[in-house]
């Protein structure tokens, strides 16, 4: 509160100045008294404060110039006679003043004052009872100064403080909002964690956003290892902005281990913590003040997996608050230290100070300069000119002397003084002395300065924080929008995924059914020689379940060499990328040794990289057995064919030679020794030669029959009519003298081997010629008939015919239905015919009746 201030000596009332002048000493005393009174009057008059005196009734009887300025009077006469009660804007304020004066003789304080024009101002003042030498009350003295400006500054300061408080609350609300949004963000993030690629994208977005937030963000595991952090995290903790702290221990930023303990126990117990104030330090040890929030992220099982936290640096704000507080303190001190010092100057070198000038200026008693030069030396150099001009203005032009200047204290501190002064002039108007008063206004100056600064600072901060808030809000909105968009995308992707998965599941099931149903072994193997999947057939043959087989390699079932052999094939496919087909190999299985045929093709992923092989194996054991059997039979058939061939060759070559010898030498006997043989002897030799001839014929027929069996039939279009004509011509030539009625029909062409068909026709037509020999009106017809769309060629005659009971023997080799005496023949002719027809894929049948003729029908491919 207000500091006690020096009360000026009470001035003497008017009219008492020249009382009692007794003796020299008395005269001296009186003179001194007069001087002192005059001095007091001067002080009264020239003080910067509004001074007034009033009589015991409270009516004003004297005021100074400052009083007139303060209350708005033009002249002293206007003020004189007014009641001091008129000082108060509110009369109630006057009562405590009167009470204090009555009881203690003095009062100090503030009140709302009213000027003559009705305007009000705040004044701080003091009032004292004036007493005469005998102690009797003769009036009141009052001194006031206007403190409206100071009060207004204080008020403004208070308002600014409130504004700042409001801004802080706004900030805090925004922080909470931020934290809340952040929680939403984290919840969404957790949701995202179970998703796939989209998740990572939005996480990256989030990360990028967080990265540039001013708020420090970090995520760490339970052991305090940093999992993630943003740039602000580094900045606040004094770490190089680009340093990656991931995987490192969370730095120890606690100034006070107790804080840490409290923080952690609260976080662990409650799962989260909000706006915890921490006296922290950066890694370089700089003290910072942070507000930290954090929460524990738990897994599905409720086990804590990591801590996510944020914190703000409030160091600057706290400092600003501190500064404000300091300036308030200064202001208060300034307000308290208003004081006046009165001085006197002889217009030469001597200065006299009234008041505790030495104490104020930090000097020992009488230490402050008492000379003009000494005083000027303490003036601020920048103010010396101003002050000099003001003094000159007063001395030469009687301009009011009212200046503010800086003056140095003993310890070097500059103080602001507000100074007023008046030159006293003699009868001729010449100044002979100067009196004045100073007021220390340093505190006011400083308060004003601080106010100005803090006002600017505050406004700046409010603007900055508003901008920051707007930016944060904007970012949050953007993040939310992104999150919403991401969520929608994820939902859409999930639906799609689900549909795809269902379809995939369906396809898998279909595939499994197909794979398990095919009568082959299907298997997928990876590059590490392990079965990825096999079908049921494969599992069955291995005698274990599919699940047991999958993941195993063949070396789990086979000796190393055998398994390696299979694997080598796989490797070739994998390295070359070329399928390997029709690998035929044997393998052991619980079912015995199996022969298998395998196709191996590269197993590629969607990018075309070979990731293994797909195998497709067929059990060809039975086939192999059949093939082996066929191979054996073919071999033995080939051998017997070979034998037959050499047999036939032998017959054709070697058998004929002795026959020729028998015949030849029989003939030589007849030629050379015929005259020595009788008829019977010659007949017998003829029988030998006839039989060699028959045997030769028999050998020829048999060779023909055998050759037809071995010979491949060539296929071409055969003009059957022309062929028949040619055959008939040939046979007629060999049977000249025979009268036979020949009929050849318009035979349709056939597909076949013309040489073989010629042989068949020759045999058939020869037979007809032979068996019609006894008939005088022999008839032979070569024609065709159509039965059920099939063409039957036939050779029909009216010859000896045959008994249908023996029809089954017609086409057998050496089968004869007639005696050699009736009709010559080897019994091979029809067998050859049948063989030719069968060789062409045709059919043959014979019809006949004894004595009436025979007919042979055959078909050929058209």
């Amino acid at each position, binding site marked *: 509160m207000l500091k006690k201030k020096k009360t000026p000596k009470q001035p003497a009332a008017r009219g008492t100045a020249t009382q009692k002048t007794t003796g020299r000493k008395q005269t001296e005393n009186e003179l001194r008294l007069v001087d002192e009174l005059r001095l007091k009057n001067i002080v009264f008059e020239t003080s910067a404060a509004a001074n007034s005196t009033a009589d015991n009734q409270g009516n004003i009887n004297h005021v100074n110039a400052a009083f007139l300025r303060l209350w708005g009077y033009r002249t002293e006469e206007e003020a004189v006679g007014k009641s001091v009660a008129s000082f108060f804007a509110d009369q109630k304020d006057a009562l405590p003043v009167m009470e204090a004066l009555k009881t203690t003789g003095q009062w100090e304080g503030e009140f709302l004052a009213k000027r003559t024009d009705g305007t009000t101002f705040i004044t701080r003042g003091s009032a004292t009872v004036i007493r005469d030498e005998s102690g009797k009350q003769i009036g009141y003295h009052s001194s006031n100064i206007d403190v409206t400006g100071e009060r207004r500054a204080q008020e403004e300061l208070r308002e600014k403080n409130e504004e700042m408080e409001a801004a802080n609350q706004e900030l805090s609300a925004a922080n909470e909002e931020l934290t809340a949004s952040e929680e939403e963000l984290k919840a969404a993030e957790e949701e995202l964690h179970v998703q796939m690629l989209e998740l990572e994208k939005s996480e990256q977005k989030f990360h990028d956003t967080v990265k540039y937030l001013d708020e420090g963000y970090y995520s760490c595991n339970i052991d305090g290892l940093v999992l993630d952090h943003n740039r602000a995290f580094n900045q606040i903790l004094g770490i190089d902005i680009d340093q990656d702290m991931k995987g490192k221990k969370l730095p120890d930023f606690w100034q006070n281990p107790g804080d840490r303990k409290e923080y952690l126990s609260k976080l662990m117990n409650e799962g989260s913590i909000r706006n915890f104030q921490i006296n922290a330090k950066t890694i370089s040890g700089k003290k910072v003040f942070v507000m930290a929030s954090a929460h524990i992220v738990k897994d599905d099982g409720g086990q804590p997996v990591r801590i996510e936290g944020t914190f703000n640096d409030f160091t600057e704000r706290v400092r600003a608050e501190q500064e404000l507080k300091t300036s308030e303190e200064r202001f208060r001190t300034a307000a308290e230290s208003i004081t006046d010092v009165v001085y006197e100057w002889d217009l030469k070198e001597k200065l006299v100070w009234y008041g505790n000038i030495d104490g104020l200026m930090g000097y020992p008693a009488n230490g402050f300069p008492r000379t003009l030069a000494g005083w000027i030396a303490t003036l601020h150099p920048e103010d010396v000119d101003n002050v000099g001009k003001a003094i000159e203005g007063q001395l030469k032009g009687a301009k009011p002397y009212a200046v503010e200047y800086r003056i140095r204290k003993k310890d070097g501190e500059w103080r602001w003084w507000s100074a007023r002064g008046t030159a006293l002039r003699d009868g001729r108007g010449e100044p002979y002395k100067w009196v004045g008063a100073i007021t220390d206004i340093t505190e006011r100056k400083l308060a004003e300065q601080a106010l100005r600064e803090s006002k600017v600072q505050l406004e700046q901060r409010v603007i900055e924080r508003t901008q920051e808030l707007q930016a944060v809000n904007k970012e949050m909105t953007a993040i939310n929008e992104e999150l919403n968009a991401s969520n929608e995308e994820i939902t859409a992707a999930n639906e799609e995924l689900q549909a795809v998965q269902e379809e995939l599941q369906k396809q898998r099931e279909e595939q499994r059914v197909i794979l398990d149903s095919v009568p082959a072994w299907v298997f997928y193997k990876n590059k590490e020689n392990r079965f990825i999947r096999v079908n049921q057939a494969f599992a069955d043959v291995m005698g274990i379940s599919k699940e047991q087989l999958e993941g195993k390699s063949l070396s789990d079932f086979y000796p190393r060499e055998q398994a390696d052999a299979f694997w080598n094939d796989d490797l070739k496919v994998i390295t070359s990328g070329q399928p390997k087909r029709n690998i035929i190999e044997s393998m052991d299985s619980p079912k015995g040794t199996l022969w298998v045929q395998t196709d191996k093709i590269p197993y590629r992923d969607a990018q075309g990289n070979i990731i293994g092989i797909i195998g497709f194996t067929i059990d060809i054991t039975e086939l192999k057995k059949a093939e082996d059997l066929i191979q054996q039979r073919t071999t033995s058939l080939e051998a017997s064919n070979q034998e037959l061939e050499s047999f036939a*060759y032998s017959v054709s070559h070697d058998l004929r*030679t002795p026959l*020729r*010898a028998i015949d*030849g030498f029989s003939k*030589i006997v007849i030629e050379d020794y015929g005259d020595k043989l009788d008829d019977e002897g010659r007949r017998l030799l003829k029988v030998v030669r006839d039989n*060699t001839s028959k045997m*030769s014929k028999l050998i020829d027929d048999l060779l023909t029959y055998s050759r037809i069996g071995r010979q491949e039939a060539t296929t071409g279009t055969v003009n059957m009519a022309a062929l028949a004509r040619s055959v008939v011509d040939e046979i007629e030539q060999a049977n000249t003298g025979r009268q036979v009625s020949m009929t050849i029909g318009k035979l349709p062409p056939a597909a076949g081997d013309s040489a073989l068909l010629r042989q068949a026709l020759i045999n058939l037509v020869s037979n007809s010629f032979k068996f019609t020999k006894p008939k005088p009106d022999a008839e032979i017809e070569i024609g065709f008939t159509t039965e059920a769309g099939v063409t039957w060629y036939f050779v029909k005659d009216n010859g000896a015919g045959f008994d249908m009971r023996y029809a089954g023997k017609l086409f057998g080799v050496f089968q004869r239905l007639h005696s050699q005496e009736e009709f010559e023949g080897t019994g091979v002719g029809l067998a050859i015919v049948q063989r030719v027809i069968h060789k062409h894929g045709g059919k043959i049948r014979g019809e006949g009746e004894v004595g009436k003729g025979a007919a042979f029908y055959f078909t050929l491919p058209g």
Partner: protein
Amino acid sequence: MPCPNRITKEKSMNYDEIEILLVEDNQTDAELAMRALKKHNLANSLYWAKDGAEALDFVYARGDFAGKKLEHMPKVILLDLRLPKIDGLEVLKQLKTDEKTKMIPVVVLTSSKEERDIVESYKLGVNSFISKPVAFEEFLKVVSDMGLYWLLLNKPPR
């Protein structure tokens, strides 16, 4: 059975006068053939080789025939196919692939009627292929006709 190894009675026969080289392993066939030729006086300058090796030695004046003039060639070679030591087709092949001997007329005279023998012989360059008839009269006729043709009618290069 007395077997005439050579038609010519003289052991010291002159190989350089041989006009017919008969290559035949079967004695009776050889005898019948020579009888047929003899009827037409065609067997006087005939040499009978009993296998393929002997036939080649004769032609190339080797071994027993070292004194024979290499440049003298028979007017015709009657060649059976189934022969001991060196087969008839092999003999034919050697004769027909050698510049010195390829112009000698070679007639295959065999019991075989097999198509493959005929085709193979012609591929190797045979001049004629004759299948021996079993009936003796036919045989005589075929052999004598053939002998007359090659020795009298045919004009070989000199």
